[in-house]
């Protein structure tokens, strides 16, 4: 059997069946984070710091504890001690120790017999603060004299003489940029800033926790990764990892923001103290104040170009503010910045800067969209100055197979050239523009990820299949798993049930992030199915009395092959499973590994922007996404990822931002003023799926979830700048900012 041969003609993969969880999700039956109940359940509430930076002098919980219905109050004293590294960072973020580090930082929590009682009791917890100086802006946080968020937070990578708020440093590249700039006909250097945005998932964080004095616990929560939650909650509570069973609820959006824990350890601590299950649900305001926004950035980019469009050198400095803890993804920003281009001379630097804001969390291709905004804006400026076509210039410089990437390795099969050619040939690119409109394009890049993956596939006596995966289904992954399993096994899609297993019933799985699920859980599903097929072929061989390697698997049947071809009637899967108990026992397949061949992904976006010169308001009349999917397993959900990434990018580019007052408090912690795009803001979003197979996946799949948010910021900035006749350097390009730029331009 040649099971590892790359497949290119498909029966099921590439079709658009109904998703297996569709009925539950259109009838209100699907159970999300806040939809679970338990007997004797209490409700929790968290008290949060109103200050951006303050020493916690005293916490008096006596009034709250005395209130009727209150069953437990916890503070940092109720968590494990002695943690270090990222466990300490997460613990400190989940519940403040000596110091509140940002507006919204959790300081105490309470559990009571009703949600209203818990909220009332939270108001009775008295906290004395000593307010400290604060800083929230990235450039100010790095400047001399800025308040120090935490001494000793920097690691050894930071060059001497930097402010203590610079906690990590990255530098990479190759060639000689000065030589490259000297060869250029035009060098443009410019500076850009982006404000933090939030992932904006519609489902707030929610969990139901139960932890007994015996150290055994159950946790139900909305998460992108329940093994991550298990590991971190266990560490923060000081219990054994395997004694905590975590079940992932249906998840109401994550986009990276649910790859860590916030309220889950708090609910467990409350439960342990109250000896009862505790439900804890964040309000929207808590989500915005205390969970993972992106980094804000300040960036300088310098690019040299010849008159024919050849880029001779590129250099970037990327400063990312990631809240009060190390971890801003500045190395991703630096490494992604110039990845679309084959460059002889490239150099990039990143700074991770801490400030009095919530700990940043991943958001769809973390760090890459900002880099693209800066880099692709400068390329657009060069195209304008040199009178060159933006797509042709990008084609001229595009990375391809064998290119030494700006971040080091050589690319294998990649689809950037195909995406750019599709953009050039798309009717959108040549459509006439109306008065007041501008057109922008941008490339985007994301690494994609493999990660630890376990899948178990069990056959039932009737020949149907249950697949247990460990990656929460955020956007239809049950459907793509079932398609890949049916493709491999040769049985109908409907005969497969895919379940998201809990931590007690499957081996470890990395989080649903890095665009890894369709790639890694898919690969694992295929491999698990192949293991089951091998066993079924063995059973058939035994039955027929021929060697195992003389049996092949075709269209859901074991078939004798080679010299035995035609000797026996094919055995359908159900024929084999019907008596599997008697022929050797239950048949299942499983896969546990860390796949390394995720295959990077490129995309190109084309967007038209219309700017009202009197008000600075931008509308988006037309948008096209072109992206390499490797192989689109369920094309409708691939299109959905493309469209969703574009929509989020439109929000980031135009209106979404974290607005801090002089007092360091978040001014817009509601959806009224944190302005994500609404239905009437957007056009239909056209999509083109490019398929350049990923050599690292049996069916050629590349992850598609993240790349789609990389190009929009730059593509829209380029469109807006061309429409308005003035270059925009700062996001969001809100109407006041555009109008001010227009007026400054005269």
């Amino acid at each position, binding site marked *: 059997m040649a099971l590892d041969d790359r497949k290119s003609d498909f029966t099921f993969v590439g079709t658009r069946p109904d998703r297996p969880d569709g009925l539950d999700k259109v009838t209100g039956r699907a159970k999300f984070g806040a939809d679970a109940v338990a007997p004797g359940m209490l409700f929790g509430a968290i008290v949060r710091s109103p200050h951006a930076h303050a020493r916690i002098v005293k916490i008096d919980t006596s009034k709250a504890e005395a209130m009727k219905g209150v069953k437990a109050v916890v503070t940092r004293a109720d968590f494990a001690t002695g943690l270090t590294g990222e466990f300490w960072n997460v613990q400190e973020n989940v519940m403040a120790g000596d110091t509140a580090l940002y507006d919204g930082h959790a300081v105490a929590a309470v559990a009571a017999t009703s949600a209203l009682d818990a909220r009332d009791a939270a108001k009775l917890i008295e906290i004395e603060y000593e307010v400290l100086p604060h800083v929230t802006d990235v450039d100010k946080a790095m400047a001399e004299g800025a308040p120090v968020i935490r001494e000793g937070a920097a690691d050894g990578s930071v060059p001497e003489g930097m402010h203590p708020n610079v906690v990590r440093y990255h530098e990479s590249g190759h060639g000689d940029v000065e030589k490259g700039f000297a060869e250029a006909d035009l060098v443009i250097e410019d500076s850009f800033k982006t404000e933090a945005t939030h992932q904006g998932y*519609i*489902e707030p964080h929610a969990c139901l926790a139960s932890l007994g004095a015996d150290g055994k616990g159950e946790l139900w929560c909305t998460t992108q990764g329940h093994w991550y939650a298990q590991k971190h909650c266990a560490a923060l509570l000081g219990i054994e990892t395997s004694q905590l069973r975590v079940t992932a609820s249906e998840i109401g959006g994550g986009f990276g923001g649910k790859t860590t824990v916030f309220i889950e350890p708090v609910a467990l601590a409350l439960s342990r103290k109250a000896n009862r299950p505790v439900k804890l649900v964040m309000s*929207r305001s808590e989500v915005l104040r205390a969970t993972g926004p992106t980094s804000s950035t300040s960036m300088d980019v310098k690019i040299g170009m010849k008159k024919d469009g050849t880029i001779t050198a590129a250099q970037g400095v990327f400063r990312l503010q990631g809240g009060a803890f190390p971890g801003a993804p500045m190395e991703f920003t630096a490494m992604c910045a110039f990845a679309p281009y084959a460059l002889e001379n490239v150099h990039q630097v990143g700074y991770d800067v801490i400030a009095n804001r919530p700990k940043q969390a991943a958001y769809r291709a973390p760090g890459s969209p900002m880099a693209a905004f800066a880099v692709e804006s400068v390329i657009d400026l060069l195209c304008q100055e040199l009178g060159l076509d933006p797509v042709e210039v990008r084609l001229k410089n595009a990375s391809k197979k064998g290119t030494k990437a700006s971040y080091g390795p050589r690319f294998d099969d990649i689809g950037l050239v195909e995406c750019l050619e599709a953009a050039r040939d798309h009717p959108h690119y040549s459509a006439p523009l109306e008065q007041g409109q501008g057109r922008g394009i941008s490339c985007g890049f994301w690494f994609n990820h493999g990660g630890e993956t376990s899948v178990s596939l069990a056959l039932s006596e009737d020949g149907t299949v249950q697949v247990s995966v460990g990656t929460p289904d955020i956007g239809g992954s049950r459907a793509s798993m079932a398609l890949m399993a049916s493709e491999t096994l040769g049985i109908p899609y409907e005969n497969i049930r895919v379940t998201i297993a809990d931590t007690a019933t499957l081996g470890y799985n990395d989080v649903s992030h890095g665009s890894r699920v369709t790639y890694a859980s898919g690969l694992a599903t295929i491999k698990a199915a192949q293991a089951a097929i091998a066993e079924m072929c063995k059973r058939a061989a035994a039955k027929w009395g021929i060697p195992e390697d003389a049996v092949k698997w075709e269209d859901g049947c074991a078939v004798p092959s080679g010299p035995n071809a035609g000797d026996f009637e094919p055995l359908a899967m159900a024929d084999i499973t019907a008596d599997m108990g008697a022929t050797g026992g239950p048949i299942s397949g499983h896969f546990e590994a860390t796949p390394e061949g995720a295959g990077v992904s490129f995309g190109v976006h084309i967007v038209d922007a219309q700017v009202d010169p009197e008000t600075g308001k931008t509308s988006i009349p037309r948008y096209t996404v072109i992206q390499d999917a490797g192989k689109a397993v369920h094309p409708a959900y691939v299109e959905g990822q493309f469209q969703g990434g574009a929509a989020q990018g439109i929000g980031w580019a135009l209106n979404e931002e974290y607005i801090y007052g002089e007092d360091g408090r978040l001014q817009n912690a509601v*959806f009224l003023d944190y302005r994500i795009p609404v239905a009437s803001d957007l056009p239909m979003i056209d999509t083109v799926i490019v398929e350049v197979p990923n050599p690292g996946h049996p069916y050629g799949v590349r992850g598609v979830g993240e790349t789609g948010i990389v190009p929009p910021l730059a593509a829209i900035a380029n469109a807006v700048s061309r429409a308005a006749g003035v270059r925009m350097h700062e996001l969001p390009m809100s109407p006041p900012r555009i109008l001010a730029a227009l007026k400054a331009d005269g």
Partner: protein
Amino acid sequence: MSKIHVTTTVNGDETEFLCDPRETLLDVLRDRLNLTGAKEGCGTGDCGACSVTIDGRLVCSCLVLGAEAEGKEIATVEGIADGDTLHPLQRKFIEHAALQCGICTPGILVAAKSLLEKNPDPTETEVRYWLAGNLCRCTGYDKIIRAVMDAATEMREAS
């Protein structure tokens, strides 16, 4: 604090409950009546995930007190399907992949049903503005709009 006794009708069934005066209709539906189809995305009327109808009028149940339900007819996502027969909107949402995570879906279905009852032949722009109070973060709305328009076409052809 004494609780308020309320008698109301939910998806055609007469229902009674006791609630605190501060509890919203959304709290009551979810926590007292175990109808968790309506979701709380914001609690401030900005996201539409808690959409229900009261006497046929589309509202955010987070902006209605439980006490106000007295004597009213409430309809939620749990009442949209007719037994095992899905409403055309429900079928079209599955068919068009108009949901990714699914958290906004109940509210959008309730709102879209309300639109089509009032306007069986809406333009794309009308659908977009009617649904502007229903935030979806996953889809970019494209497939949602297509599903609503397609359901409207099918319903017009069937009637």
